């Protein structure tokens, strides 16, 4: 198939940036979206044009490094996949595809389609851990039985890949789904109880400080999340936050 591409080009963080038109011929439907961009980049290099910068690494949908806002949707039109797993068979000959970076105040553009998501890391520094040292003397792993249902829910929350699609999809650029996934994982486990109150207060405060918006329950984040992280996590975090705020806030 032959495609028209409108791609965001921006030299660096200070550049204004603009959409630039490209064309690409003979795209196989079996290509992944990023392989299509690889081919385009090879053509650009051969023509002496600087290739388009985009983030990617594992290309298996698990590292969370790839992003891209494709035709107005984070990770493009397919559901439950990241951009690296999106295939060109979801498009048809003659289509025009708009490709932009994830947009949010807290995710400044670094270059072209690459954004800075280090705000996500800083939220984790504020409390996304259980304070246990490595010693070899912690108690036996089976000393605390955990009900299977809770363990499974904690696992589901923990499968967040930190890609930022939730923020890019939210009209308020809220990071509630991302933060609630980590808060929920630990709230559901006995190991996480000791620090639960400080954790939720500190992480939510940090989220606000980093410039993410508020949650207005539109649910776009859940729809666009490549890992299907549930809105239930946001409800759970709100309960945790309320209860922590009453006792400690």
């Amino acid at each position, binding site marked *: 198939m032959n495609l028209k591409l409108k791609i965001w080009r921006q030299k*660096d963080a200070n550049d204004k940036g603009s959409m630039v038109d490209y064309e690409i011929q003979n795209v*196989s439907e*079996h*290509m992944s979206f990023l*392989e299509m961009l*690889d*081919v385009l980049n*090879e053509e650009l*290099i*051969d023509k002496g044009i*600087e*290739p388009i*910068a985009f*983030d*990617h*690494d*594992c*290309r*298996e949908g*698990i*590292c*969370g*490094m790839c992003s891209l806002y494709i035709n107005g949707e984070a990770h493009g039109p397919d559901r439950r996949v990241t951009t690296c797993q999106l*295939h060109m*068979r979801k498009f048809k000959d003659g289509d025009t595809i708009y490709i932009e970076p994830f947009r949010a105040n807290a995710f400044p553009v*670094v*270059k072209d389609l*690459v954004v*800075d998501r280090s705000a*996500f*890391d800083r939220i*984790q*520094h*504020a409390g996304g*851990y259980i*304070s*246990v040292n*490595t*010693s*070899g003397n*912690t108690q*036996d*792993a*089976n000393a605390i*039985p*955990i*009900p*299977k249902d809770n*363990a*499974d829910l*904690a*696992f589901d929350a*923990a499968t967040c*890949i*930190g890609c930022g699609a939730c923020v890019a999809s939210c009209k308020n650029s809220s990071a509630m789904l991302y933060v609630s996934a980590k808060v929920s*994982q*630990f709230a559901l*486990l006995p*190991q*996480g109880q000791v620090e639960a109150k400080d954790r939720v207060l500190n992480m939510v405060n940090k989220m606000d400080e980093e410039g993410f918006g508020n949650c207005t329950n539109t649910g776009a984040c859940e729809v666009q999340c490549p890992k299907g992280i549930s809105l239930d996590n946001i409800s759970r975090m709100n309960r945790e936050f309320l209860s922590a705020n009453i006792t400690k806030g």
Partner: protein
Amino acid sequence: MGNLNSGVPNGDLKNKWTNYKDSIDLVNPANKRNIDVIVVGTGLAGGSASATLAELGYNVKTFCYQDSPRRAHSIAAQGGINAAKNYQGDGDSTYRLFYDTVKGGDYRSREANVYRLAEVSTNIIDQCVAQGVPFARDYGGLLDNRSFGGVLVSRTFYAKGQTGQQLLLGAYSAMNRQIARGKIKMYNRHEMLDVVIVDGKARGIIARNLTTGEIERHSAHAVVLASGGYGNVYFLSTNAMGSNVTAAWKAHKKGAYFANPCYTQIHPTCIPRSGEYQSKLTLMSESLRNDGRIWVPKNKKDVESLRNGSLKATDIVEEDRDYYLERRYPAFGNLVPRDVASRAAKERCDAGFGVNQTGEAVFLDFSSAIMRYGKEQALLKGLDENDTSLVKNLGQEIVKSKYGNLFQMYEKIVDENPYETPMMIYPAVHYTMGGIWVDYNLMTSVPGLYAIGEANFSDHGANRLGASALMQGLADGYFVLPYTIGDYLSDDIRTGPISTELKEFEEAESKVKEQLNSLVNNNGKHSVDYYHKKLGKIMWDECGMARTEEGLKKAMEDIKNLRDDFWKNVNVPGGLDEMNKELEKAGRVADFLELGELFAKDALERNESCGGHFREEFATPEGEAKRNDKDYTYVSAWEYKGEPSKAVLHKEELVFDNIEVKERSYK
């Protein structure tokens, strides 16, 4: 050719590690505050080492090329992590895990290291659970186990198909706690481009800030490489796009011996290539071979019709199918070890029986399993077992419950429904057992330079067992290195901060800048990927699943010529002082172009077949691997001498006092 000293402590195997820990030098907590350690890489090994060293009180500086430490490729590991907990009461023990690992590695690993690995495996599970890693549990709330390829016990802990992700996020959370305390200084989007040696000791690194292009000097009292494996030398592998050998290779060029580069694991169940544009390969858990039957057509005519689309796999009748694993290995059938299954698929495809357009794919067929499970369900539910469509539906449900996520992944990539038509699979490179040579302390041949995880030549010998990579990465990082490094650093308590103004830093920096300059100013005619793909093809054809003397000699020559051409004709657009992804790739490919030649040299020198290294000249009449224990029971550690072809071999003889060395047989 010297005999390398691994520094394994004396004494009984079972007590070596305990006694050794009691006797090595420690650094007191107040002094740890005056000591800096650099860690390169944030996978399971680098992440866990960074966190633990910081908890102990050292000042840690950690580097990763990704935008966050959480993205390291350990995250993609699926199956699980082994530990000799014996929770199932099925007779597991430290010795059994040790035994299975040495045997699985085809008797080419170091006994004392493997025993220590098995010993600390149980601590890993305790530690991870304490961190909040959500392992799978049974209805009683206790941890669940599954069994994995080629062992007789259930010792694999798992978190669905995302065990690597959950363990890495555990290490990442432990790091985050130390980053918050200021004990780890994290350098994201930074790539190590050289190690700096001062007075014979590793004292720092030169790194490039990948966002600004700035070249930075970082000093420390010790440097730890946790930069992963080098599978991307093949261009196509299951590694992440950015996985590279640069940190390890630069260390090699500064004096660290590179051990057993030719030991590569090629995994049989990956999704085949679909075209020339392909950028990477995707692995599917080997558990699929429990229920899938592997076949190709018996007749070339059917192969042609499959390729041109006039025939579907399901149209080919039973007697026209060649279930070649069941034919060649009646005892083990489709469950032969990874290396054997991979080679057999290659043999059929080379003979012209590959079932897709590229000619490099075989079928993995679940229809027999679906019908078998369906009949069982029909009987259990009192339904008509002769109703074919009912039985098929019931069987598909069972298969879905066992392999649902893998089937979904396959369907997303290939756009075919594997419940209705056989999957297509082909082997792909996914792990490298070789790496930087280390002693018992995990220190390389350069004092103060350590290598952990997949980056070292490690504990897996010539072949790694499933679910052991995660175990080794975390064992090195949480429980081994933090002890052993103290023995070295105890001499550095009065050293004080290392200055980055030393001439060694200046020299290393100017060399790095020189190479980067020559790359961006080359203005050649071919892209970096052009060379990477050509290198990958040489590696795959001559250093892949089957190797010959003639092919390896040719590979050494071809790689050298390709490397010369690269430096003359590569085209790297963009500048130095900015984010430049082509420049990053160019530096990595330049190093792969040297490693590849050493790889071929190592494979050529090893005149035997063992584990992942198969030389066609050294096979039994039936085509099975033939080890030569008399002449090759050693680790090949190569010293850099200006050109990969001139590398000098040092041998570490392997001694097996606690295990009987036997033939592996699958018939």
